[in-house]
């Protein structure tokens, strides 16, 4: 076991997969000589050379399309979005070509590629660098969307994503890169399509992902002290949703709260709520509740920014109300 920071866990995942498979390469802005804006690819160019750790010009849509072409012809590109918000500039290549091309080509080509990088609201980075845009991509057919949340799952999930034959959007969180954890010395993979039961419980199911997992766990401390026993599930896979894990939990607790960092309108929670209503309506003792961030551009001011995203106290209050008042 070795204590590892999350950004180093991600780096280890890339390093191990590049050593294992010569068709794996990294491309993006400042991934090479600079080592990545969060040092996830630090010094890898020295080990693998400039072609396998390719510093690109600032041309997001074009280098994303280039990765699609490389993937179609047998390579396994890993794109680093310096900030996942920059994906907006590559939306066409991600949607039309990464996501849809396999289907449109009638199965002629597969697109094994990973698009990873820091997402989420950081500390006063302003609206454009504090995007909550994972939900923007969930309607694109053919994409898998994954969000990591601990050093352990970050490493194992990224290795699985690199080995997956489909395009995977891999969301890291800008405020989680310095999480520390003892990681196994042996190689391990974490499956992309499995939600993680973070804490078993019987009173209510809390569905969450990425940084909000940690806000939820803070709230859980207070809830447990009040005698409430919540089950916490980290979705991991935002698309497709793992109803093999979500379903049995709801059948046990009959109450669901979704805690997400993305915006309320058209968010991940909106899709989950609709899916639960489709599949498990009869199991529910109360309407599914969503705690989402506000439908506004992320403000710069620190107080306004903290009001924009869900805070642990709000989670605690909402869960307590749902469980004790039986609403």
């Amino acid at each position: 076991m070795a204590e590892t920071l999350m950004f180093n866990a991600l780096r280890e995942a890339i390093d191990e997969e590049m050593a294992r498979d010569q068709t794996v390469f990294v491309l993006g802005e400042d991934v090479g000589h600079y080592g990545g804006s969060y040092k996830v690819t630090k010094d890898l160019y020295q080990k693998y050379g400039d072609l396998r750790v390719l510093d690109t010009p600032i041309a997001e849509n074009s280098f994303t399309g280039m990765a699609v072409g490389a993937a179609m012809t047998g390579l396994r590109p890993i794109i680093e979005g310096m900030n996942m918000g920059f994906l907006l500039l590559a939306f066409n290549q991600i949607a039309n070509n990464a996501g849809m091309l396999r289907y449109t080509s009638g199965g002629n080509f597969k697109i094994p590629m990973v698009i990873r990088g820091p997402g989420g609201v950081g500390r006063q980075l302003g609206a454009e660098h504090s995007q909550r845009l994972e939900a923007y991509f969930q309607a694109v057919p053919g994409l898998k969307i994954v969000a990591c949340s601990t050093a352990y799952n970050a490493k194992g999930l990224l290795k699985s994503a690199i080995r997956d034959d489909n395009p995977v959007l891999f969301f890291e969180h800008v405020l989680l890169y310095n999480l520390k954890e003892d990681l196994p010395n042996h190689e391990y993979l974490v499956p992309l399509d499995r939600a993680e039961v973070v804490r078993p419980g019987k009173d209510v199911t809390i569905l969450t992902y990425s940084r909000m997992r940690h806000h939820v766990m803070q709230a859980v401390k207070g809830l447990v002290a009040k005698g409430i026993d919540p089950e916490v599930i980290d979705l991991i896979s935002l698309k497709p949703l793992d109803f093999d894990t979500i379903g049995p939990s709801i059948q046990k607790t009959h109450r669901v709260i979704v805690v997400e960092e993305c915006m309320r309108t058209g968010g991940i929670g909106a899709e989950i709520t609709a899916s639960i209503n489709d599949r498990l309506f009869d199991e529910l003792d109360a309407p599914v509740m969503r705690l989402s961030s506000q439908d506004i551009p992320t403000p710069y001011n620190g107080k306004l920014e903290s009001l924009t995203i869900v805070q642990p106290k709000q989670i605690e209050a909402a869960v307590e109300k749902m469980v004790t008042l039986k609403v």
Partner: protein
Amino acid sequence: MVQERTLPQFQAQKTELSVSEARVIYEDMVLGRFFEDKCAEMYYRGKMFGFVHLYNGQEAVSSGVIKAMRSDDYVCSTYRDHVHALSAGVPARQVMAELFGKETGCSRGRGGSMHLFSSPHNMLGGFAFIGEGIPVALGAAFQSRYRRDALGQADADQVTACFFGDGTTNNGQFFECLNMAALWKLPILFVVENNKWAIGMAHERATSQPEIYRKASVFGMPGVEVDGMDVMAVRTVAQAAVARARAGEGPTLIECLTYRFRGHSLADPDELRSKEEKDTWLARDPIKRFEAYLLEQKLLEEVALKEIRDRIQGAIDDALSFAEESPEPNPDDLYKYIFAED
């Protein structure tokens, strides 16, 4: 009508062409023309749907470039992709069946006219949004260089030809990819089919520098202007560019001055192009011009040309029957091909 650009002069007599090469090129051009004529007929008879963009008039570009390449090279196209696919070796049966939405189509009926793909023929696609195929082609070219220089595969010398129109050269992806191709010396041909018009937007109204080949110079890349109605001229330019690319010397921008003989698509009323302009270009029909060259050089005789035309017409009829008789996709397969495991 804007004053026509003077077409660059080319002395075809100085270029070597064997009889078998002449036959391959002529067959390919005739196949392209007859195929598109049949598409128009089928569209107007209500047998074919969607947006259908025909290639009539531009055959010298597809045949001149792709028949100067190897079968393991890559081709990347636009929404006007039928003839590029045919030149790349995708059987006419599979292309026609795709246009009929059949399971036997090259994209299994999921793509349609603007999305022709064939991995066995390294046909990277029909890309229907302007410019979006250029980065994909760049990726295929990067892959060749990666295999050669990062993985040490000496035989990884495949070249990619990326086709697009004059309108695309005002799009950012064009400039971004020219930059990266030159920066990394990628084995790629950027082939501009300058047919003077986007849909209703004349090239001169859309760009501050109408001579597209000059745009290569700022990237330190060779830019060549060629008479896109002369297959021998296109072939000669393409051969030089392919040789450079294969030798690791990097990309070339080729501007082919050409013309589409039909509207933008079969839904286009084509009201903005003057009769005078159309007549000027119709008189430059690339197939008639190549026939004259073949006869003059005594490479093929009229009887041989007619035999080829008859045989190709037979192949088109066969492709049509095949497409009509082929099954539609199974509705149970609606979700097939979303993911790689499907």
